[in-house]
């Protein structure tokens, strides 16, 4: 079980579960990659969302209402993921935007995900990235052109 860091505690168990559901809907496991609801990734998502608590709670209340409208006991019983997401995007765009940003930031820095994409799982500094020297003969057509900025 993943340790709940302090900012996660700003969300209740039900809220964390609902955010996990949405994260999984957004990026499910597949193609050799983990789900965004993977405990390690979700912990980062929750930590990020803690700074947007009011927007998140508002969005989750809408999710609860959608579950009620669908006649199920709660968000975790919702089946029509795309319909729910469309409804959220329509009425709670800011919540969706914040959630997408947090999930993307948490997911695409994960070692397993980066390696799955063929990328190095490291910070850019200090190694940097190799970029080959440019063959500047590519510029030959431009070099032959006379100066064309306006002389004043």
């Amino acid at each position, binding site marked *: 079980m993943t340790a709940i860091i302090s900012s996660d505690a700003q969300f209740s168990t039900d809220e964390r579960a609902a955010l996990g559901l949405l994260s999984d*809907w*957004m*990026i*499910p496991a*597949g*193609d050799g*990659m983990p789900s965004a609801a993977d405990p390690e990734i979700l912990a980062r998502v929750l930590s*990020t969302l803690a700074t947007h608590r009011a927007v998140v709670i508002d969005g989750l209340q809408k999710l609860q209402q959608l579950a009620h409208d669908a006649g199920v006991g709660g968000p975790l019983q919702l089946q029509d*993921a*795309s319909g729910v*997401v469309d409804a959220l995007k329509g009425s709670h765009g800011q919540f969706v*935007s914040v959630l*997408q*940003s947090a999930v*993307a*930031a948490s*997911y*695409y*820095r994960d070692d397993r*995900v*980066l390696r799955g*994409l063929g*990328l190095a799982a*490291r*910070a*850019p*500094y*200090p*190694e*940097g*990235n*190799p*970029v*080959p*020297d*440019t063959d*500047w003969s*590519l*510029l030959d*057509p*431009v*070099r032959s*052109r*006379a*100066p*064309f*900025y*306006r*002389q*004043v």
Partner: protein
Amino acid sequence: MSDDKVDVLIIGAGASGAAMAWSLVDTRMRILCLEQGDWVNQSDYPTVGRDWESRPDFSGSPNMRRRDEDYPINDADSPIKPVNFNGVGGGTILYMAHFPRLHPSDFRTRALDGVGEDWPITYADLEPHFAVNDEMMGVAGLAGDPGVPSKEGLMPPVPLGVLGEKVARGFNELGWHWWPSESAIATVPYNGRDKCVNLGPCASGCAQGAKASTDITYWPEAIRRGVELRTRCRVREITIDERGMADGVVYYDADGVERSQSAEMVIVACNGIGTPRLLLNSTSARFPDGLANSSGLVGRNLMLHAMAVTQGIFDGPMEGYKGPIGCSLWSKEFYETDLNRGFARGYTMEILRGNGPVAAAQMGMMMGALPWGEGHHAAFRQMFDKSAAICAVCEDLPEEHNRVTLDPDMTDSHGIPAPKINYVLGENSINMLAHAGERSTEVLRAAGASFVTPTVTSGVASGHVMGTTRMGTDPERSVVNEWGRSHDVKNLFVADSSMFVTSGGVNPTSTLQALALYVADNIKQRLANLFD
């Protein structure tokens, strides 16, 4: 800490304040600079950590960054969102280090094209100062560009990489101009700075120290030669004496204690938003509408550069996340006026490298190109590292209704009224943006893009803030004179992009620093009768 009177008080330690301080030290005057932010430790930059793509404390937007030393900007009434950084180095901490100069024609838009206003100075007046600034900052590029005046002393250009070469071939296919961008990036060891190792996201700061931010270029030299720089000191207002001359400032120190500092002369270098904000906050019985504002132009003529961003999706890897994101190549094909295009003046096409995985995913989802659910992984693999973007930096003409005022409600952490921006795109800009989007699409298709996204022109961020205390010889049509001194207050100077009369179609840092050096040079030459 001493509150003894100083000869020169500079407010702001960014791109222009640093250049000004470094130059004026020649006078042996006692120079003090007050900076509301702090030094940035290079080991704190995002690229040293695994969360390098998601550090809000290094966001360009002060409204997202929300550091204690930031002030909020009410930008709700502007389609372009200003970005900045408050600290030693100012905007150069987070800029992309694109380092073009304004063109000679930019200083004569009224005479040549009947739009905007003519500057009271010319490109030739600034040319020696451009050269000094290039040497201090260190500029990489390639001599011989037929699209701009020649220059010397460049370091080798930043390599184009796969992405740049592919787009360059697109320009060649169309027979259009392109050239490697001039960049304030050390491509070889330069004045104690390490060479660039292609970390990628220059816009969150350079942990390598290859990018020329003024905290590692001008400031070490200026301080070594005797300039005093006090950080975490936020100026609330400039004060005046009974003669209407500036006599100092009131500021809050790092502990939040209100202090005053007297000075023989005051130089404001807080950028195109911070400078008018400070002047408008400096009211008195003599200057009820703000200091130096008898023309009513303080805050007006705000120019932000309209920008058209167009993205192409290619079939193969572009390696776009490798290398300085903003510095690849530029095109001046559409820079100079051709009225057959349906607008006056023009734009630079700047080719941007690609994003890292987090930014690519965030942007993909925001634009609806990256779905939720089952198709997510395949869509991400199809789009990541397959894109190239062109940002057309369009000349933004001065219009008085585009302005900075004081927000009636919003304040910074010291309770000082925050700036509010009202900005609308003019017809000339709208036509130029449309043209730029179409031409960018052509280039990307010629380069082999299999798909080109619709051009984005709204919601774009810009650190190019200009024109809000413009220079001129007529006190009714300008705020400062032809060498940066306030028309109204003879010992008050401006030394930043607020002085720009027109915006050109290029990133402003090189020109605003040359302008600061030009003002400093004038001060040095006129010391005997500076306040007459």
